[in-house]
């Protein structure tokens, strides 16, 4: 019998612990992309992940590298202290939009302005997921949540925060991009963005942040496929995809656009 070539496997940087997430949640996809990047860059032995509060609070169980749990919103401050103490380590935070764009705004703005040599994986699904679907700073106009069931009204609760754009204005030495995981093509781009957000730290060229648009079927009260369609039609309309700040001069040819269709960058999961 012909021996079959293994073309797909669980990344090494991922533990055996099953994901605790709801069906259709994007965290699983994004976790896997992060783990694949850690594998490909061969940094599992010196990577330290920092968890945040929210649905991903327990992802210290998922990544097979040293992990530190941070308080709500404080990941970039913890990462700053840790990077100063362990400058050779590759430090990444994994934060949701409640964590980073609400309570942790000061920490992320100043970490970005210091061009702190850290990588931030910022998952934007537009709601507070773990607490039951309250409005986040990123909730779209008109989108109903448990705290504003009639939908977000900018007159009473303001406009959604565009963190990637905002941070790119204060962080001259950085790689800041927004990607999405609503289909295969975009998952490939998301992985590129995550890879570059790590590389900018590894090459000591700046601060790295990959904002990933994500779905929360449970709190959007939609089925997973409907969520993906919503990202494509509504979410991207407000949160345009692309690179907002790029210090990746080391690999100028390696842009998000050119990465499409390359087999070796095939994402692991949908």
């Amino acid at each position, binding site marked *: 019998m012909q021996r079959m070539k293994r073309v797909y496997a669980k990344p090494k940087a991922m533990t055996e612990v099953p994901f605790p997430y709801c069906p259709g949640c994007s965290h699983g996809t994004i976790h896997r992309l992060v783990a694949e990047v850690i594998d490909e860059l061969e940094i599992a032995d010196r990577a330290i992940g920092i968890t945040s509060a929210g649905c991903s609070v327990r992802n210290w169980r998922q990544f097979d*590298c040293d*992990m530190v749990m941070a*308080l709500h919103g404080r990941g970039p*401050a913890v990462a700053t202290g840790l990077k*100063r103490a362990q400058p050779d380590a590759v430090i990444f935070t994994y934060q949701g939009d409640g964590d980073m764009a609400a309570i942790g705004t000061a920490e992320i703005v100043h970490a970005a302005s210091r061009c702190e040599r850290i990588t931030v994986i910022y998952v934007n699904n537009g709601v507070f997921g773990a607490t039951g679907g309250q409005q986040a700073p990123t909730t779209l106009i008109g989108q109903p949540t448990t705290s504003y069931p009639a939908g977000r009204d900018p007159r009473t609760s303001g406009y959604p925060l565009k963190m990637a754009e905002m941070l790119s204005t204060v962080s001259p030495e950085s790689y800041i991009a927004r990607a999405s995981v609503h289909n295969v093509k975009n998952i490939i781009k998301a992985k590129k963005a995550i890879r570059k957000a790590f590389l900018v730290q590894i090459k000591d060229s700046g601060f790295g942040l990959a904002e990933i648009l994500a779905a929360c079927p449970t709190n959007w009260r939609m089925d997973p496929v409907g969520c993906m369609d919503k990202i494509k039609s509504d979410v991207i309309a407000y949160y345009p995809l692309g690179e907002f700040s790029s210090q990746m001069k080391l690999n100028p040819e390696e842009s998000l656009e050119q990465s499409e269709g390359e087999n070796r960058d095939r994402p692991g999961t949908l």
Partner: protein
Amino acid sequence: MKVARQKKDRVIFEKKLMRGNEAIGAGAIRAGCRFFFGYPITPQNELFEYMAQMLPQAGGTFLQSESELSGINMIYGASAGGGRCMTSSSGPGFTLMGEGLTALATAQLPAVVVCVTRAGPGLGRIASAQSDYRLATRGGGHGDYQCLVLGPASSQELYDLTYKAFDLADQYRNPVIVLSDALLGQMMEPVATGHLPRIKALQKEWAVRGKGTNPRKVIKVAPHTDEELIDWNRQLKKKYQMMKENEQRHEALLTKDAELIVVAFGSTARIALDAVLHAREEGIAVGMFRPISLYPYPDKALNKITRQGTRKLLVVEANNGQMVEDVRLAVDGSAEIAHYGFGGGYIFSPDEIYREIVGYSKK
């Protein structure tokens, strides 16, 4: 600081005139502190600026954080990475650090946190006070956690006890608070610095630095299951009991035959001592008890003194009555207790404490 000269078999060390706030910084660097994250606030700025100047020279990192909240969380990160680290503030900023203190204690990360107390409440003013006693000894953050708290009373003690704080923090893997105040911070006194060994990098087994070829490590601030939570709290309780048992520190003066004892800590103890010595000269059987560890409170020693016959305690503190609660618990009804003190920036004169001693001794 070099050894200046040898006299007989005793080693005499050079002394240097230092502001209290600087003595804290010098003690910290001597103890191997290499990371300082802080935010400006009066009256601790001399410490902040001392670290800004001296820490880079010692090969360390100074970083001005965007808030005390960030500062204490940077401490959390640096401590997780195995560094000896410190932050400092005064009341309003110290309040913000409550969140980080409970996290450090929960994750069992060592750190030294200095509070140079100013008069509150609210934004208050920068005059000296001891009104953060309760905040330091009772928490400031949520949940059942406990910091060790040291209450120095001179520039020398600020130096020595800050140094000691780093050892205690590592020994118990717990945050240690050095509770100073504006008066101590601004006062200049000679400080001997050479008697404590200079500490360089320490290897901490539990610190994260990237797993390398070893199994991964996780610094956790939350348990995963209810069972783990109960187990976790049991372990912490055991540690806190051990701290309470082993880390009581105090100084007792003229207490053997004392009918009345003045209890005071920090800068107030310095002022009260003048009054006590004056009263002794006048023939009043008065002594002095100064807690050096504010948590754990030195209740064993104080209780022993009152059980041996001292009937009256006069608690003097620059607040509305915070430490007096610990004194009540310590003596457990075995002595009469009076309190003298105000919050809000009032500095005692030895004379008024003397008058209180005389008045109370006649009651």
